């Protein structure tokens, strides 16, 4: 006891303790900084390399507005970026409602029994399944079993499967982070479970859900393997029917069943050609794809930032 008291009131000891802690802080901060610098400079070097290589094509407006071609200097990414956007629209339209609904169900409605435990373990594991396995599943199920062809719809379906776990998990986390007090306030006013969820919990959880959805979509936008597996074409020299037209009924969904290509596939096709000029195209397409992905992540970060600074 006496020694303890001595230690506690030993001023010199305190000074050395503080010094040791400070040194530790500096060490950890320095290490973190180092790792961060390595990671960022790798990314930056890659991006710069692509950018410099692709610059001749990036500067050419025709690059964005032409179809692929056998001549490298005439080949463009029009069908690829249109395809990417259409596939993303289908993916978002399928995965967000399904994923949010599943997350809400698991978090708010399902009791906890062995069934929901099983579902929970599976959802978490699914997030770690290699994407090509999803491609094989889609090939077997959608193409062979259901007789669908390699269309925008099938691509959207397989990418939706791929990112559903991400959206489900982030929805659950967003809902779980809502203070119990909101829920009790709504229930205490006489709201039923659906009113509570729909009118009070989901709006409060929206930022977290949107962030999760965007993180999922930015993963989907770069996916190549599952889309190649389902047999997407690498050479598409036409655009799907525009979804909006001047004639009645003005809106059509032909594009959903249209063949397509996407940015990563276009890149892959160019990279695998022997001619050096195509490597320039590939690099330029890579820059465009990275910019698309970074933009989506920027939106996610912006939403999180806005929420954090609201209260």
């Amino acid at each position: 006891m006496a020694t303890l008291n001595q230690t506690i009131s030993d001023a010199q000891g305190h000074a050395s303790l503080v010094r040791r802690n400070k040194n530790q802080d500096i060490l950890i901060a320095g290490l973190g900084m180092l790792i961060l610098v390595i990671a960022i400079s790798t990314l930056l070097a890659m991006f710069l390399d692509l950018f410099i290589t692709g610059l001749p094509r990036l500067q050419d407006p025709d690059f964005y507005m032409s179809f692929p071609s056998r001549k490298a200097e005439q080949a463009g990414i029009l069908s690829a970026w249109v395809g990417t956007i259409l596939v993303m629209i289908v993916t978002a339209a399928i995965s967000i409602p399904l994923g949010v609904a599943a997350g809400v169900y698991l978090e708010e409605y399902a009791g906890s029994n062995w069934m929901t435990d099983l579902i929970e373990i599976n959802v978490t594991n699914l997030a770690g399944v290699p994407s090509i396995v999803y491609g094989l599943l889609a090939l077997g199920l959608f193409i062979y079993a259901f007789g669908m062809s390699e269309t925008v719809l099938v691509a959207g379906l397989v990418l939706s499967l791929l990112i559903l776990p991400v959206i489900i998990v982030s929805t659950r986390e967003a809902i779980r982070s809502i203070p119990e007090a909101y829920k009790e306030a709504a229930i205490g006013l006489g709201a039923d479970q659906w009113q509570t969820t729909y009118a009070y919990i989901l709006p409060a959880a929206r930022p977290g859900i949107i962030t999760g959805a965007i993180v999922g979509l930015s993963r989907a936008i770069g996916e190549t393997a599952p889309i190649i597996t389902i047999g997407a074409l690498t050479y598409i020299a036409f655009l799907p029917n525009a979804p909006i037209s001047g004639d009645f009924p003005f809106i059509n969904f032909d594009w959903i069943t249209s063949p397509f290509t996407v940015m990563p596939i276009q890149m892959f096709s160019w990279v695998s050609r022997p001619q050096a000029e195509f490597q320039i195209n590939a690099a330029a397409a890579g820059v465009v794809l990275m910019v698309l992905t970074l933009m989506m992540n920027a939106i996610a970060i912006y939403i999180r930032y806005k929420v954090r600074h609201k209260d």
Partner: protein
Amino acid sequence: MTSFSKSIGMMKNVSTTAEPVATKRTHSAPPPASAGQEDTWLLEPEEELRARVSDLEFWYGDGTQAIQKLNMPLVDKRVTALIGPSGCGKSTFLRCLNRMHDLYKGVKYSGEITLMPENVNLIELDPMVVRLRVGMVFQKPNPFPKTIYENTIAGLRIRGIKKRAVLDEMAEKSLRQAALWDEVKDRLHQSALSLSGGQQQRLCIARALAVQPDILLLDEPTSALDPIATARIEDLLNELEGQVTILMVTHNMQQAARISNYTAYMYMGQLVEFNETDALFTRPKCQRTEDYISGRFG
């Protein structure tokens, strides 16, 4: 109300905070001659009742029994204060009355809470039906992250009321009742989170009043507030006497004395004494009540 008379009102109340236990009704009571010898004491009020709790018992999901054979009347349109040491089951009892516990798994009730003119057992009703009639205000203000207006009429929306005129009218009426109207009438469509803690709590009271509940439960509604905000809410509760049946948990015995007509003292999940407030504080019937209110423990 002008801001001048308001500040007078506030000052009056602030000053009472510092006084020793002064009861609401002014007729002077003799000091406790000798603390009562009773073990428990349950006054049978002469006024009309809104509910009667009989042999209520409650268990949490983990098997903890938090309420034991609790008996107590709840007088119609009067303020009843619930006091007792921390952990004695005040919040648990309060949350039985709007069946909030039913949100969580494995809880169990036994006994009866009979709602008076209807003569139905609240424990056997659908919890949703109960919550439509019994409002609640929590210890920490918990407005929704929506506008002040939307918060006020949240309960009306839940009940499917859509007519703009009705909503507007009820919003103004309940904000006035909660003495908040003058402060927020120009910013009804701003976020409720921009209000101060005391304003938020009055907003929560307005939200609970907007649906005209039969019974209003308050769980330490002023414990997170400063003395001025507390005084305003006490004024408000005083005004509600005669309109709503109120059951309020408080740790502040001066507060219980200032605003309640009846007081119940709970200890370890049981009711020790239920009496008129001034009687309970000046002539407690039970030694345990006497010990608690005189600060000898708790």
